[in-house]
């Protein structure tokens, strides 16, 4: 009867628990308590992940569009500038300059005018010193008596009469900007909306492309080198394979810098490999091979560093493949190659997939090794991100580059899911 399941039925009443409360409520309470307990158990981990992973990512994504500094530092100027025609060829009128004088005076008091200068300098070189210089002078002015200010500003620096300066201030006055993302794809906000940067300043698209291609090359060489090793690991007798496993894991216990420096010693022109090649006469002394400070060096060093991340998932998948599949294939008439290619290999694809995703994503974000052995042609987009974080302090651009990298990884992940299937990934 339906009555028994509705607890507001006055005639029959709901099913009651032993203590007289409706069974449904009693059950819900018991479940809630259980869920609460479970939640409390994972709470430390949840908070940890939120604080160390999700929040920084969210913060980064926010930074890549955040641009409150202009309207916060120059509130009056931004309002006064709203009516100015950026398409024309006359600088703004006295009202704007008066507002600017008032804004800069307060900003100089709080020492925020130089900060704004650095921010706007990313978009228009020269604005950093313009604001630094002006701050010092404007502080001494009396806003009530010293006007008109247009002349006085032009006295400090002619650049205040430059339309580009005002255009930059106006373009970047909204609290959100697409400027960083545009910069990250070699574009800029011009007078007529987004446009490509000058040819000789385009760098990021090229670096994104290179990063992807080289990460792909590294992933492929990891597959090529890792597959046979994983196969050996999975098929050798226990004692030998344990020893081999230690060798595979050994790089994990050595500092990244040490390993990278070791490759330098091996690969450089006066290095071990070249010395040997010259000594056996394969290469003449004045034609030593260039194997480092280029893409080859980066691919070699990074393949070495990331190889274990490919081998381990492959190994654990291979280990779970019963040797009788190969025997079955051979008994059914397949040659060794056919048995491998048609029967063994397809079953290892989940391991290759897991290893490839790991290696590719790690490779895409690497910057220490490319910085050390990449030379000019082997650097990655991450090297630029590191530069903008620690040297140029253009965190907005760094965040935008990181955001694009994140998007690229997600697109690859989506593509992998679509064409191979993410449930087809096995770590063991």
């Amino acid at each position, binding site marked *: 009867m339906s009555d028994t399941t509705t607890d507001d039925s006055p005639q029959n009443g709901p099913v009651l628990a032993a203590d007289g409360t409706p069974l449904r409520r009693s059950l819900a309470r018991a479940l809630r308590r259980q869920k609460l307990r479970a939640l409390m158990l994972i709470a430390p981990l949840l908070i940890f992940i939120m604080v160390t992973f999700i929040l920084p990512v969210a913060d980064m994504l926010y930074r890549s569009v955040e641009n409150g500094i202009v309207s916060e530092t120059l509130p009056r100027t931004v309002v006064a500038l709203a009516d100015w025609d950026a398409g024309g060829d006359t600088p703004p009128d006295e009202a704007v300059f008066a507002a600017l004088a008032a804004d800069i005076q307060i900003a100089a008091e709080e020492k925020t005018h130089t900060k704004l200068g650095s921010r706007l300098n990313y978009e228009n070189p020269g604005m950093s010193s313009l604001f630094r210089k002006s701050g010092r002078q404007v502080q001494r002015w009396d806003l009530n008596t010293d006007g008109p200010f247009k002349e006085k500003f032009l006295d400090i620096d002619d650049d205040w009469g430059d339309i580009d300066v005002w255009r930059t201030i106006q373009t970047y006055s909204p609290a959100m900007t697409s400027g960083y993302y545009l910069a990250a794809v070699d574009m800029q906000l011009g007078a007529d909306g987004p446009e490509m940067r000058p040819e000789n300043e385009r760098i990021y698209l090229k670096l994104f492309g290179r990063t992807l291609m080289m990460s792909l090359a590294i992933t492929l060489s990891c597959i090529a080198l890792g597959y046979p090793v994983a196969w050996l690991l999975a098929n050798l007798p226990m004692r030998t394979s344990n020893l081999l496993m230690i060798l595979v894991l050994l790089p994990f216990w050595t500092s990244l810098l040490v390993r990278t420096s070791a490759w330098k010693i091996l690969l450089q022109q006066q290095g071990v490999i070249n010395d040997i090649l010259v000594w056996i006469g394969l290469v003449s002394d004045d034609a030593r091979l260039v194997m480092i400070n280029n893409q080859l060096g980066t691919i070699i060093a990074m393949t070495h560093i990331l190889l274990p991340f490919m081998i381990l998932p492959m190994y654990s998948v291979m280990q779970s493949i*019963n040797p*009788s*599949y190969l025997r079955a294939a*051979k*008994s059914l*008439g*397949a040659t*060794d190659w056919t048995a491998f290619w048609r029967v063994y290999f397809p079953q290892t694809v989940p391991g290759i997939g897991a290893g490839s995703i790991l290696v590719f994503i790690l490779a895409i974000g690497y910057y220490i090794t490319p910085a050390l052995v990449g030379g000019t042609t082997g650097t990655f987009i991450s090297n630029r991100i590191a530069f903008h974080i620690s040297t140029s302090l253009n965190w907005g651009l760094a965040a935008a580059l990181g955001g694009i990298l994140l998007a690229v990884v997600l697109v690859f992940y989506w593509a992998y899911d679509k064409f191979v299937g993410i449930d087809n990934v096995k770590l063991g």
Partner: protein
Amino acid sequence: MLDQGSDDFVVFDKVQKSYDGQTLVVKDLNLSIGKGEFLTMLGPSGSGKTTCLMMLAGFETATHGDILLDGQGINNIPPHKRGIGMVFQNYALFPHMTVAENLAFPLEVRKLGKSDREAKVKRALDMVQMGDFANRRPAQLSGGQQQRIALARALVFEPELVLMDEPLGALDKQLREHMQFEITRLAHELGITTVYVTHDQTEALTMSDRVAVFNDGRIQQLDPPDTLYEEPKNSFVAQFIGENNSLEGTVKELNNDTAVVQLDDGSLIDCRPVNVKQVGDRTKVSIRPERVEYRSERFQEGAHLLKAEVLEFIYMGDVFRTRLRVAGRDDFIMKCRNAPDQIRLKPGETVNIGWMPEDCRALDA
């Protein structure tokens, strides 16, 4: 039992196998298998039976000796050229292929055309009553269904010889019995030669034309199931096949087909000498529980009888199983058919037991 062709289709000739160069896993194996015969290799684990199968399949090489298939030495022929169908213990169905693709695999590598392939796959699936499952993946099938597919795959390319390595080991009892019947039916219908490896003696007895009992790297006895059961040639076979009572003693008298053995407690029994050479030899005598008799009217004149004390009576439905103390041993079993005239012995009773001399075999000690 079918009438086999007398030609030796598969021949093991003085085959030896060693893995470590110190011990022989297979010692001097000589075996001929007739065309169309269903031969089972039976033995405990480590007896060398699987090694023999693997040598025949080509996954192991013989350390010494020759293996012939249809008169031709195959020692140097790689497995994929031997054309032998094989069913594995875990079925080894390729998990990334559908049932139909699994079956088509041996046909594809033999470069058969598409329509040929499809026809053969369909016929093979129908043969094992799995026609509706062509597009499933192995993981979506039950154990029994996988077993049928594995069988169909081993047969689909029409090999003349099929090897089966404990194929029913993973199935439950009922399904196993059903599949035993299916496999023998198919083998005989198609007329293929089958070599079947198992450690389950019931399976061996019910399915095979002949059974080779392996122990310690040698064939202990090679005979049809009934001979094997009723006329074991040594005490290992007697003990391994079916239930068996074993008593130890010394040969007192020895004629052509009868002997008298004095058990260790002094009592005498009649038996048929099988494995004893002269008076004074130590021997183990073997008597099947269902051949033991306790009713005096069934005994021959002058037969030697033994005193037995009933220790336990077990009612098993179709038979009564009685545990007795005989000649100082507590594990002597007597089985009696549950018939209207059968008496249920009570623990503590003392009876005289005996048997027909030809049912009691004096074997090696």
